[in-house]
């Protein structure tokens, strides 16, 4: 799809993952044993033939920049395309007269990169949130949009019935036209679908919407920009039926992590003909010792396991010593769980050490998050 441009929002608006987002945005948070959350949206674009992608950033973005590098590992280190990182203050006032400085939200971010959008020659733009875990065939979405004649097509899902103050809900007509969009309110169940944060529109229409919103000082993408489109023009929906999870808080993160311990969900997310790409680290395979006892867990390369592990996700290079016992936990890179330690419902950020004999416990509803490089 040469004539499609991808845009990813890689900064946080309403999300908060406690200690995990102290040093990075949700997009850059580790997920699934070897990925970062943004890998899903970026891979969706690559797998759909979108090789020109702009990533909008606002703050705490060093972690993301380190992760993406030259974008080689996504096959996006291209001569005539590839990833463009778009932090605030990217353009001069002349090039980008609408907004140049700090962003108040997604509309400002798009307005700040208006020069990038104007210079591009793509006919369509796919805008995606970097905090979404889903494997979506975006080429299908663009195809449906092209045929429908709608001004905007948004990808929605019926899977999640939850009541989330930050989620965007919408009501569809029988012909899958969007008739109502609400943020944080599903109108007593009338809005049966949740927006996944993927929007397709023509580049010209997006530029028109941005100019219109800036002129009226609108800030909120879902509340204001989408509503303007809904009132004035035609908004359609693409209903996505496979696994999807938007990560707003630590509970969502924990839930999505535990979800992928299920084989069916894993198959939906890591569909082999549409792989999820990530940065390659060249670790040796995982090593299981004589006393290793591992059940229902995902284990990345480079791990060294001598203890007991059940219902866990271990990122690369995690060491679980003899007689350590961890359950229902997520241990990120370089975690060291020493002999006799015991963990339950814990999310340990990178480089955490839990010393001999220490015990920590959270609960399914409130997994305890241990900050980066902490020693317990």
């Amino acid at each position, binding site marked *: 799809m040469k004539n499609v441009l991808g845009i990813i929002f890689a900064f946080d608006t309403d999300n908060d993952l406690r200690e995990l987002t102290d040093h990075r945005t949700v997009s850059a948070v580790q997920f699934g044993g070897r990925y970062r959350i943004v890998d899903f949206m970026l891979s969706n674009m690559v797998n759909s033939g979108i090789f020109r992608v702009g990533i909008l950033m606002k703050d705490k973005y060093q972690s993301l920049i380190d992760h993406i590098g030259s974008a080689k590992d996504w096959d996006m280190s291209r001569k005539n395309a590839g990833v463009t990182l778009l932090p605030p203050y990217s353009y001069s006032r002349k090039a980008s007269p609408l907004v140049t400085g700090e962003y108040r939200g997604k509309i400002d971010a798009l307005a700040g990169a208006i020069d990038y959008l104007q210079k591009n020659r793509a006919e369509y733009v796919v805008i995606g949130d970097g905090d979404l875990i889903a494997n979506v065939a975006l080429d299908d979405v663009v195809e449906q949009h092209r045929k429908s004649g709608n001004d905007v097509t948004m990808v929605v899902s019926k899977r999640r019935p939850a009541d989330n103050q930050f989620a965007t809900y919408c009501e569809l007509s029988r012909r899958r036209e969007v008739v109502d969009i609400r943020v944080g309110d599903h109108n007593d169940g009338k809005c049966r679908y949740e927006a996944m944060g993927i929007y397709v529109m023509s580049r010209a229409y997006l530029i028109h919407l941005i100019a219109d919103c800036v002129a009226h000082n609108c800030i909120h993408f879902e509340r204001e920009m989408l509503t303007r489109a809904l009132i004035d023009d035609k908004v359609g929906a693409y209903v996505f039926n496979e696994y999807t999870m938007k990560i707003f808080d630590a509970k969502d993160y924990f839930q999505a992590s535990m979800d992928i311990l299920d084989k069916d969900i894993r198959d939906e997310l890591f569909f082999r003909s549409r792989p999820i790409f990530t940065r390659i680290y060249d670790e040796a395979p995982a090593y299981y010792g004589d006393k290793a006892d591992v059940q229902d*867990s995902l284990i990345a390369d480079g791990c060294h396991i001598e203890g007991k592990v059940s219902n866990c996700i271990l990122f690369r290079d995690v060491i679980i010593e003899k007689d350590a016992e961890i359950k229902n936990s997520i241990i990120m890179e370089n975690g060291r769980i020493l002999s006799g330690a015991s963990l339950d419902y814990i999310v340990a950020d990178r480089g955490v050490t839990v010393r001999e004999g220490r015990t920590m416990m959270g609960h399914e509803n409130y997994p305890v998050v241990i900050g980066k490089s902490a020693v317990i």
Partner: protein
Amino acid sequence: MYRKKECVAMLLAGGQGSRLYVLTTKVAKPAVPFGGKYKIIDFPLSNCVNSGIDTVGVLTQYEPHALNSYIGSGQTWDLDRMRGGVYTLPPYQRSKGSEWYKGTANAIYQNINFIDEYDPDYVLVLSGDHIYKMNYNKMLQHHKQNEADATIAVLDVPIDEAPRFGIMNCNPDGSIYEFEEKPKHPKSTLASMGIYIFTWKKLRQYLIEDEAKEGSSNDFGKDIIPAMLGNGEKLISYRFEGYWKDVGTIESLWEANMDLLSPKSGLNLSDDTWRIYGRNNGAPPHFTSKEAKVTHSLISEGCEIRGNVSESVLFSDVIIGKGATVEYSILMPGAVIEPGASVRYSIVAEGAHICEGAVVGAAPSEVEADAWGVAVVASGVRIGKGAKLPAKEMAGEDLPDAE
């Protein structure tokens, strides 16, 4: 563009590796998987880049497709360079006719132009069938300090194994006075590792002379080294200490993989300062289910394990069904072991499928001593339901379901 390099590496990767039998019917030996996520060639290539040698010619001849596509642009080893990088060099047609690589020396001879392009002072000659980690730069410094014409890496081997190797007889100062190929009564225990550094000017001249010589086998060990010794050139040995293993046979390939399971074997794959690079297929982390029991094994990404695994090396995307048993085995990428199957003391190649209830291989204690050996299932082969593949046997074709 000026492209001078101090040292260019030439990696001999054209051999079939016929003693690996069914494992090399479709790929050359250097492309055979090793150690859970690597191929044999990853070791010399990673050694090169870790030693600061960024220009490598890979000489291919036998079944080159898998190797060519594996090497690609060289990005995996950080060898996609503007100047230098990795090149595959198959035999090619020239104005005076064309021929296959006749021997190891002839392969280099046919690529004199490639080497000349970099105007190197030294050429490192490597082979693609050994597993080891080595800093070639240290060997190069040794070569330079001794102002040698050729430096040969040697390993001290047990005296009873010496007759299997090319033995270097050295003076106390490390200079070589005699080379004996597989001597019955070895005078020394210093075995050649098949790693040579030559001063390019000298080697170039010997290659041209050797090519002109009628009846020469155009081989480094048989022709070039003896000729240099005969002319009194300065040949010195470079002692290597550490893990080194020739994986040219089924047994040695199996053993070398098993060595990885013992932390004291000497080959540390998780050493940050000397990483071994290999192409990554981007599979998710491996999953071990609650029915599974995994001990003393190496497991790679993408595996789904529901059976019992011990003392084994599993490459990426291997699937092991409920109640299946895998012991002392090597399962290459994408192998499928169905529920209830038993695989012991075996090598199961890429994409092979072991059906329900099949029995592959056996423990040494279960069979007569001379009947034991590692069982091998070739790439893509299906071992039918309840079928049996005894120890030491090789399945190059599908085995039907048992009656």
